[in-house]
């Protein structure tokens, strides 16, 4: 489908409510650490641009992938953190003697993906009335280009464009960037827009 300005506005609204929910969730996980949030940046780009969409395709990243579906809507959601940001979050959340990239660290990243994506879905569910269920998360640690390339290689029936939501949060005197990629299946975006009854 063709995404117009009005559709973009709706996505921006969804992203900002979702990011707010996600920041609240993250702040709770970090024992009420204050997290400030910039307005998320929303981009729509052709699917084939995905490997380089986060900048340097050779950057090491941690990506958590989940599938959301329900009420006729299906989308793949990928949360991408720089490896550095991922390790920083893990070391804040795990006891000191845990290896950040060991089993417990990986499991934490998957749960973090599950929680943050669920908080975004909460926004989508509130705005549309749809109920979306998630699959268990899977985790990849690799270069951004290779990881994202493999995501689209495995999927069929995707919309020609994907949605990138860039979130920047500020905590521990540092900026943490968290990128969320939404890859809707053909027809799903239209269904969401129709349900919201605008545009």
């Amino acid at each position: 489908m063709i995404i117009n300005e009005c559709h973009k506005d709706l996505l921006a609204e969804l992203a900002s409510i979702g990011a707010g929910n996600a920041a609240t969730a993250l702040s709770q996980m970090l024992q009420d650490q204050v997290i400030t949030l910039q307005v998320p940046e929303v981009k729509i780009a052709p699917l084939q641009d995905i490997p380089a969409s986060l900048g340097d395709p050779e950057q090491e990243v941690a990506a958590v992938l989940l599938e959301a579906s329900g009420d006729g809507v299906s989308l793949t959601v990928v949360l991408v953190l720089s490896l550095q940001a991922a390790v920083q979050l893990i070391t804040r959340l795990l006891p000191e003697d845990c290896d950040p990239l060991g089993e417990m660290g990986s499991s934490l990243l998957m749960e973090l993906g599950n929680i943050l994506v669920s908080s975004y879905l909460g926004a989508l569910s509130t705005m549309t009335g749809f109920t979306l269920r998630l699959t268990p998360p899977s985790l990849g640690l690799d270069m951004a280009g290779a990881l994202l390339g493999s995501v689209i290689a495995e999927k069929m029936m995707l919309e020609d464009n994907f949605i990138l939501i860039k979130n920047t949060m500020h905590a521990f005197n540092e900026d943490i960037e968290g990128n969320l990629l939404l890859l809707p299946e053909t027809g799903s975006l239209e269904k969401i827009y129709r349900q919201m009854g605008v545009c």
Partner: protein
Amino acid sequence: MEKTVLIVDDTAFMRMTLKNILVSNGYTVVGEGEDGIQAVNLYKKLRPSLVTMDITMPNMDGIKAIKEIIEYDDQAVIIVVSAMGQKALVIDALNAGAKDFVVKPFQPDRIAEALQKINN
């Protein structure tokens, strides 16, 4: 009577977090399950006084597992601990027989409150 709990969640991190909170609230962790199938089998074997149940898990999800456990023992005490706070899913879980629904992430107090509620 000893208070025993079966913790069910597909991620080790969340099981560890819940374990710490439950132990400090006087529970003995008698088992841990990573999916719904393990949850049902462990419930039958261990008959714990409490189950904490995740929803999004591989093989069998938490809602299905709650239904099977309640079918086996309609007195089972199950609290859902899930990131999916959407209204319809909360209703599904409560209809299936869960006693309470805690949305992740949670403060330890929220779990303590749920425990108090079921013990009254």
